[in-house]
C-alpha cells in the first residue's frame, strides 16, 4: 500500500504549517494546510485524510475541540496534537477522548517522519467476504468514517495479501469453498496477534465454528446485519491501541 500519507496540518501559525508542509512534501507525503479548526473541519469533510496533525492552542476552536468533532464524524481518522505546552490539562483531556499522541514543539522531525512511516504500514481494515456488495457497502461506510479499507472478495487469496496492509481483518465465516475458521487458522500461523473480527449472518448455525474461531484467538464475532456504531467504536479502539503502542516503541 501507499506509504504516502494524506496529512492534514492545522496550526494558526502559517509559518509552522508552511515549513511542515514543505518537509512532509519533500519526504513523500501529501500535506494539506489549515490555519483554523473550522477550516480543518471543512477540508476533512470534503477530502479524505490518513491523519491529522494539529496545534492545540488556536484562536476559536482549539486542537482538542477539533479532535472531538473530527472523532464524531470520522472515528477512523487518527489525530495527533503538537504543542509548545507540554503538560496542559486540555491535552490530558484530549488523550482521554482518543487523541492518539502528542508531539512537543519544536518538533523532532525525524521522529515524526519515522512515526508516520509506522503509521502508514498496516493501517487498513481488511474486509474478507465473498459477498461483493457487502464488502462494498461496508467499505464505503468505513471509508467515509476515516478508515483505510481494503476489500478482498476472493477468499482463496494469499494470506499475505490479506495481512500485508492489515491492522484489523474482518473475516466472514462462510466463504465460498473455505471456512472462515480455516482462513483464520492460516492467518494465525503467521500473525498470532493480528486482530481478526469474525463476521457471520448465521448465528445459530455457526455456533461451533464461532467457538472454534474464538479458541484460536479471534478477537470477536459480529453478526450481520452489523451494528455500525459498535463496530466503529471497536475498530477505533483497536486502532488507537495499536498506534499508541507504536508511539511507545519509539
Amino acid at each position, binding site marked *: 500500500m501507499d506509504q504516502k500519507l494524506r496529512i492534514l496540518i492545522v496550526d494558526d*501559525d502559517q*509559518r*509552522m504549517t508552511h*515549513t*511542515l508542509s*514543505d*518537509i512532509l512534501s*519533500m*519526504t513523500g507525503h501529501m500535506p494539506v494546510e489549515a490555519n483554523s479548526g473550522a477550516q480543518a473541519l471543512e477540508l476533512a469533510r470534503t477530502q479524505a485524510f490518513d491523519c491529522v496533525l494539529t496545534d492545540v492552542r488556536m484562536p476559536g476552536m482549539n486542537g482538542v475541540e477539533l479532535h472531538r468533532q473530527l472523532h464524531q464524524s470520522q472515528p477512523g481518522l487518527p489525530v495527533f496534537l*503538537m504543542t*509548545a*505546552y*507540554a*503538560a496542559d490539562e486540555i491535552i490530558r483531556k484530549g488523550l482521554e477522548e482518543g487523541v492518539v499522541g502528542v508531539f*512537543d*514543539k*519544536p*518538533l523532532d*522531525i525525524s521522529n515524526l517522519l519515522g512515526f508516520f512511516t509506522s503509521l502508514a504500514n498496516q493501517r487498513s481494515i481488511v474486509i474478507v467476504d465473498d459477498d461483493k456488495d457487502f464488502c462494498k457497502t461496508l467499505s464505503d461506510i468505513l471509508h467515509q468514517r476515516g478508515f483505510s479499507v481494503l476489500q478482498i472478495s476472493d477468499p482463496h487469496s494469499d494470506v499475505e495479501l490479506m495481512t500485508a496492509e492489515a491492522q484489523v481483518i474482518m473475516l466472514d465465516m462462510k466463504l465460498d469453498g473455505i471456512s472462515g475458521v480455516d482462513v483464520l487458522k492460516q492467518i494465525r500461523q503467521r500473525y498470532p496477534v493480528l486482530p481478526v473480527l469474525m463476521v457471520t449472518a448465521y448465528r445459530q448455525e455457526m455456533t461451533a465454528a464461532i467457538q472454534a474461531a474464538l479458541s484460536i484467538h479471534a478477537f470477536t464475532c459480529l453478526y450481520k446485519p452489523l451494528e455500525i456504531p459498535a463496530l466503529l467504536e471497536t475498530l477505533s479502539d483497536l486502532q488507537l491501541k495499536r498506534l499508541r503502542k507504536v508511539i511507545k516503541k519509539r
Partner: protein
Amino acid sequence: MNLPTILYFASIVLTFALIGFLAWYWRQQVVRSSRAQVAAAQALLISETRYRRLFEAARDGILILDAESGVVTDVNPFLVEMLGFPRAGIVGKELWELDFFKDIAANKANFLELQQKEYIRYEDLPLETADGRRFHVEFVSNVYQVDHHKVVQCNVRDISERKLAEAKLAQLVAIVESSDDAIIGKTLDGLITSWNAGAGRLYGYSAAEAIGKPVSMLIPEDRPNELSGILAKVKRGERIDHYESVRLSKDGRRLDVSISVSPIKDASGQISGASTIARDITERKRAERSLQEYSLRLETDVAERTQELRDAHEKMIRQERLATLGQLAGSVGHELRNPLGVISNAVYYLKMTQPDANATIRDYLGIIENETRTSDKIITDLLDFTRIKSVDREPADVSYLVHQTLKRYSVPDSVEVMLDLPPDLPPVYADPGHVVQVLGNLVTNAYQAMALPNETPQPGKINLSACQQGDMIAITVQDTGTGIPPENMGKLFEPLFTTKTKGIGLGLAVSQRLIEANGGTIEARSEPGKGSTFIVYLPVYHLQSNSQIIE
C-alpha cells in the same frame, strides 16, 4: 446649925438642883429633839426636794410601785414622755395592767421574784410606747423601805442608743472577724491585743495563743529593725500603707505579706496602740515572679516569632515572586517554543533539500540547529522548574537507566567512564524519563566540571555506581573535576544558582524537584580540586500484592 440640918438642906438643895438640872436637861432634850425634829424635818424636806428634783429631772424613767400590791404610785416625767402616756393613766394602775409592759404574765412572775429578792434587773426589756414605737430598756427594780411599807423603785433606761452602739460594735467586730485579711491590734510596745480569724488563718495561731504575745514572734530574724521602725512611725501618728514584707507563720513558713499599719487613738485622742492589716500576698508574689519570667520569656519568644514571621514573610515574598516569575516564565517559555519550532522545521527542510551544500552552509545549518536545541533546553529547564511534570512511576532497572543516560548524554572522548552496577540490584520505583533526565543533568555537570574553563575537555574519570541501602537505591555519580567550594555547597540546589557562564542555573534545582517527586533525595559532596560526588536516592520497587521483589 447642926449637921443633919445642913445635910437636910443640902439634900433639898441638891434635889432641887437635880430637878432643876433634869428639867433643864429635859428641856434641852426637848429643844434638841424639837430642833432635831425640825432639823430632821428640814433635812427630810431638803432630801425630799433633792430627791424630787432628781426624780423630776432624771433622764431615766423612774417608776414607784407599792411593793405589796404592785400599784404604781409615782412615775417621773421622763418615763411619761418616754412612754407617751399621760401620768393619770399610769399612776394608780397595777404594773401589769399597763400596756407598755406587754409581757404581763412574765411581769407578774418577776414581781414575785422581786418581792422575794428585793432586786430585779432586766438588761433588755422590750417596751411599746403609746403610739406603737417599740424600743428596748434596761429595767432595774429595787425594794425600799419607806415609812413602814415597802416601795419598789424601778429605773427604766432607754437602751436604744446602747443597743445601736452594741449593734454597731457587733457589726464592726463581725467585719473584723469576717475579713480575709489578718487584723491585729497591738500596744505601742508591740504586744498583741486583738487577733481576728483572718490573722489566725494567715499565721496559724489561735487568738488565745496570740493575744498578749509580742508581735515580733511573727517577724523573721532577718528583719530586726522593722518592728521598731513601724512602731516609731505609729507613735508619731503616721500610717504605713501597703508595705510589702515577710512574716513567719506558726509552722515556720515564710509568708509574703502586704501590711498597712495605723495608730489607734483612745478616747482622749492619745495614741494607745496600732492596728495592722496584713494580707497574704504569697500567691500574688508568686504570680508576679511567674509573670516576670513569662514576660522575659515572652520577649524572647516575641523576638523569635518576629524573626520567624519576618523569615516567613520574606519566604512568602520570594515564593510569590517565584510564582509570578514561574507563571511569566511558563508563558514566555511556551511562546518561545512556537517560533523555535518553525526555525527548527526550516533548518530541517534546508538540510534536507540542500544535501550538496558546501561545508560552510552545512556547518551554519548545524549551528542554527544546535542553538535551537540549546534554546529549547533552556526553556525546558525553566518550565520543568516552574511546573512539576506528571510523574509516571514504574519499576525501572537502574543499569538500564544509566545506560540510557550515557547514550543520550554522550560522553566526551576525554572522559573515562567507570561503571559499578550490581546485576542483582532491585529495580527502583520511579519515572524512568525523570531519572534519565536527572542522571543526565549530573553527568553533564560532571563533564563540564572536568573541562577547562574554555571548555576544552580534560582527561577525567566519571564513576557511576549503584547500591542498595535499606529501602532505597543509591545511584552515585562521581567525577574528578574541579570540585565545589564549601561556600557554594549550601546553594547548589537553589534555583538560578550557577557558577557557569552558560546556563540559567536550574539544572540541579529541577533535578532535586524531580527526584523528590519520585520519592527520593539527592545529596552532594565535594572536595575542591579533587572532585564531586552526587548521590541520588530512589525507593526500591516493592510488589504490592506480595513481598516478592521482581527482578
